């Protein structure tokens, strides 16, 4: 039996890994989904070229959402190519353009094969476009050279005419300068004379006004002087009178009459006239009106411009026949599932080998455990205990299930810690496939325990079953390595569905709902196998009694 196990594994591995050595996974072509948002000639050419490849079957999708749905639905659809808007225009104007390749990271091998073809196609398109552009540019360069020669001749004529024109302008400048100097001198002389006359007239007017003003004040001053002289005479009269009075009065001095009245002072009008400020009118000189500059300056006429030769319209020429070197057609890779494009290999191997060793541990553990119990006699003792056979088996399997689930959880923790594996956006959802495969493995282990009669039989049967289930179920390599017939056969394996669930969460980065169906199918397989195992468990008891 142990010799059969490697033969089976070699067979599975040989068929599975043939892809690495160039064997296609099947005769039917891959589906290549294309979303054409450009609709230009370049997009059409690319799609036509892809369609000529017999290895792919081009499927058009209206948008990325439809493409994503198709890829998730179709096993043989590894990627989608989106041709962005204005790709053709950008390419024609020399910009590098990038097709966007949305791949399913789990279908990496098939995607890589198509990407290889796409890469080759991009190079061919770029090369062909550049070749055409170079040809047109050569023709345009010849045309341009002829135009440039003609333009050069015309430019020489223009330069000669411009030189003559420069000399004419120099002569005109000198003439204008001398004329302007003469006219300026004349204007200044005339202005000086006119201003002198005006100043003299103005000064004379001012002098007359001042003298008139001074005459009025002199009259007021004469009045004041007269008053003062009269005042001085009155004062002397008073003093002599007073002397006479006093002498005459004697003892009757007290009866002296009042002194004579003083002359009245000058009135306010003469004094105000004296204090009034002298109004000295400023001379008024009007120099604007007599000097009209516009009438004064007369510039010489400029020489007439000659007729220059016409310059070729290069802009028009190039706009009509411009040829730009096209850009480079390339592609960018993105994940269509939302996960990482670059997959950590441990995202595949940690769950994959975790399942493998879960199966081995479970098959050996349950099988050998039951055989040990049979050999020890404890199985017979349990049977006699009154507990139902199915109850005892379910109890034992429940314990194994919990151990298996714990083993998977620990393994994922270690994978995260040591290898940085992705646990997806919702790591808790990993529990569902882990629990489902633990349950299914426990169910399978019961069937194996029913089949194997001895410890020597349990080990090879368990190992072979675990290895075949792991190999075909995509635990050791991505499922898309395998040929399609093997993938179809693997749908009966719980490992296939569990790996699909793990891949959906860890590599594709999908939401928890993506594991619902795989977990349900795995559990359903487990329930079916468990029913067979429970029915067969009576065989274990029969052996225990013998």
């Amino acid at each position, binding site marked *: 039996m142990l010799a059969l196990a490697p033969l089976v594994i070699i067979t599975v591995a040989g068929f599975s890994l043939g892809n690495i050595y160039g064997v296609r996974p099947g005769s039917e072509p891959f589906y290549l989904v294309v979303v054409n948002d450009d609709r230009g000639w370049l997009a059409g050419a690319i799609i036509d070229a892809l369609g000529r490849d017999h290895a792919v079957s081009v499927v058009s999708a209206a948008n990325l959402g439809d493409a994503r749905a198709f890829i998730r639905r179709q096993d043989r659809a590894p990627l989608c190519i989106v041709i962005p808007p204005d790709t053709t225009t950008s390419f024609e104007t020399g910009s590098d353009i990038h097709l966007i390749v949305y791949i399913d990271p789990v279908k990496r091998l098939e995607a890589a094969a198509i990407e290889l073809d796409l890469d080759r196609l991009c190079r061919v398109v770029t090369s062909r476009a550049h070749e055409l552009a170079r040809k047109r540019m050569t023709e345009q360069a010849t045309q341009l050279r002829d135009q440039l020669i003609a333009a050069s001749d015309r430019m020489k004529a223009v330069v000669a005419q411009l030189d003559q024109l420069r000399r004419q302008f120099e002569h005109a400048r000198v003439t204008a300068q001398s004329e302007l100097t003469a006219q300026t001198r004349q204007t200044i002389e005339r202005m000086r004379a006119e201003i002198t006359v005006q100043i003299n007239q103005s000064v004379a007017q001012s002098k007359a006004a001042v003298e008139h003003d001074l005459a009025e004040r002199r009259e007021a001053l004469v009045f004041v002087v007269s008053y003062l002289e009269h005042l001085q005479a009155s004062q002397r009269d008073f003093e002599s009178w007073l002397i006479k009075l006093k002498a005459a009065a004697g003892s009757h001095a007290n009866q002296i009459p009042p002194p004579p009245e003083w002359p009245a002072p000058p009135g306010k009008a003469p004094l105000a006239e004296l204090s009034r400020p002298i109004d000295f009118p400023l001379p008024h000189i009007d120099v604007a009106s007599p000097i009209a500059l516009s009438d004064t300056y007369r510039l010489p006429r400029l020489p007439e411009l000659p007729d220059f030769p016409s310059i070729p319209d290069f802009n028009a020429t190039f706009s009509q026949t411009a040829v730009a070197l096209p850009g480079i057609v390339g592609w960018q890779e993105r994940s269509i599932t939302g996960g990482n494009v670059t997959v950590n290999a441990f995202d595949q191997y940690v769950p994959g080998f975790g399942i493998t060793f879960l199966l081995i541990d479970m098959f050996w553990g349950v099988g050998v455990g039951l055989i040990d119990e049979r050999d*020890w*006699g404890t199985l017979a*003792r349990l049977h006699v*205990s*009154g507990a139902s056979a199915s109850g*005892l088996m379910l109890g034992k399997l429940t314990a194994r299930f919990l151990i298996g689930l714990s083993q998977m959880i620990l393994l994922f923790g270690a994978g995260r810690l040591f290898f940085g594996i992705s646990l997806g956006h919702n790591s808790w959802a990993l529990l569902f496939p882990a629990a489902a495969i633990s349950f299914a493995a426990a169910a399978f282990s019961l069937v194996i325990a029913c089949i194997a009669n001895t410890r020597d039989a349990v080990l090879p049967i368990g190992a072979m079953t675990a290895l075949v289930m792991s190999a075909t179920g995509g635990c050791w390599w991505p499922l898309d390595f395998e040929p399609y017939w093997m993938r179809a056969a693997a749908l009966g394996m719980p490992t296939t569905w569990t790996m699909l669930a793990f891949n959906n969460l860890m590599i594709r980065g999908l939401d928890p709902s993506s594991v619902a169906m795989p977990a349900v199918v795995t559990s359903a397989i487990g329930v079916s196998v468990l029913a067979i195992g429970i029915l067969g468990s009576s065989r274990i008891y029969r052996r225990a009694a*013998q």
Partner: protein
Amino acid sequence: MPPSPEEKTLVKSPQTIIGAAHLRKSYGSRLAVDDVSFEVKAGEVVGLLGPNGAGKTTTLSILATLIDPDAGQVQIAGIDSRVAPYTLRRKLGFVPQSIALYPSLSAYQNLETLARIHGLTRRESENRSLEALESVGLRDRADDPVFTLSGGMKRRLNLACGLVHRPAALLLDEPTVGVDPQSREGIFSTIRTAADSGVAILYSTHYMEEVERMCDRALLIDEGKVLADGTIAQLIELGGHHPRMEMVFKKSPLMGWYEDIQGVVELAPTDDEAKLVLELTSLRQVSEVLEHAHSAHGQLLEFAVHSPNLSDAFITLTGHGLRDTTTQDQ
């Protein structure tokens, strides 16, 4: 198949705990058990004797409901195995020939686990486990893993596992194989205590002296059939053996000195003239033989008297041929 009206009358006495009626089981063309019927009452210890391949283990397996008989009926404490096998098992204690223990669990854990599986509550399981350990003298080794115990201790624990849930019937299959005398005595003591408490015990063994010592009755089966069923004395008698007397003379007595004694004959004449083997009719003739020898001027050097036992009866009833040509006792 539901029991017939006749089969319902299997339990003849209210005290009958183990009842087997017309059991029949064959493996292919070989008949392992053929019309075996017996019963064991409460507090009774019944030995199950037979050479290898006689059908002892098959009979025990049928009683333990490990295998179904082709025909016949089993009742334990009045419960028919075909009507309520799970209820029947609750009443049954089974001590297989192999040491049916979990090696990595402690003695206490083995007992407690089995008690829980038998349906006892946690508290009951704890109490019964400690009691069972006490009864087999393993209280101080309760927490030791089974693999660290000696063979005798494992045998005692094996027995305790069959008693921990206080069954009405106990099936013992070679419970003393490979144990030292001290452990054997401990096992005997436990069995006797169980029987005294009313447990009906069916004791399968090859050791005749154990049956003679422990059992109230014995069943002798061979080739699947019950050859004899009765008390130990009845079986010995059934074997037809008489007491033998071996005598060695320093000086032989006169010829024919024992011929006057009624029923005494010489057995298997030997080449040694000084040695004589006589078959007596009963042990009461020993003194008479000695008197006759003395009267005939014989000088007796030594003598030995051999009383017939179960082993003699077993050999007589089952024959002298080897029975271990099969690898497994059926």
